[in-house]
């Protein structure tokens, strides 16, 4: 379920401030999104880079070895805006479908 949306979340966390791979995982977790069970972010980052949605550069990290930093490109920001809109539409639709059910988890 999260697979396609994860691209979008990755774009979102490097929209304001560039980050390297693990930093992105940390930002996702800090915002309440655990990536466990969703596969690795590296192939997704590679695809975003290839499609020109993120720009990359190498720089020293705080007290660590040089890292590959990612940030959203202008094209990526547009994709993000569009994707976020599409996601809200889907979410609204799913919410309204699910709100009509009275099934509940038995505790």
């Amino acid at each position, binding site marked *: 379920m999260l697979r396609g949306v994860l691209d979008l979340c990755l774009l979102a966390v490097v929209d304001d401030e560039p980050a*390297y*791979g*693990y930093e992105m*995982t*940390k930002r996702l977790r800090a915002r309440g999104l*655990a*990536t*466990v069970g*969703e*596969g*690795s*972010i*590296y*192939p*997704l980052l*590679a*695809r975003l*880079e*290839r*499609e*020109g949605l993120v720009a990359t550069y190498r720089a020293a*990290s705080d007290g*660590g*070895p040089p*890292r*590959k930093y990612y940030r959203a490109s202008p*094209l990526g920001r*547009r*994709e993000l805006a*569009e994707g976020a*809109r*599409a996601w809200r539409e889907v979410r609204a639709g799913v919410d309204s479908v699910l709100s009509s059910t009275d099934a509940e988890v038995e505790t």
Partner: protein
Amino acid sequence: VSAFVEECRREWKRLGVPELLAEEMATDLEADLAEAREDGVAAEEILGESDPRRFAASWASERGLVPDPPPGRERRRRWPWVVGAIVGVWVLLAGGGALFTGVGGGEGSAGTIRTLVVPPIPATRAVPRLVGMKAARASAIARASGFEVRRVYVRPHGARAGTVVTQRPRSGVRARRGTTMTLRIARRRR
């Protein structure tokens, strides 16, 4: 964990990923894993899976560093050259025949050595620009270029209904044959 990265290195080498790029990926991965370990985060959360070969292959392939998925690669590469060789031999024989029987075309054609180069079918194709086109036309062009098509209907926002608003991958880049192009199409106003 370092064994995992080593396996990745081996797999990238096997797949023909340029050494510099493979080393870059391995170093980044090692640095990220080391940092995660300090934070007490399981390597599994970073790697997403336990099979280093599959992990390495999918990363390299998404970066565009692997020409084609391994199973189809051999066959796809080989047969254009076989066809090329057959056509080449045929041309030489025909040329030689013309020389001996004197049935050459115009002046200078007899005795001229012609070479026919049959290029291998490229594994990647240039992505055409489809934005602004009617959906049907855009889809037809995408398929003719060797891509699959996925249409997503979006609010028109001023665009003409039924036309392509955005495309992914963008035009101008090269994408593997069979890649699914996502076309966002302006739907009709309700």
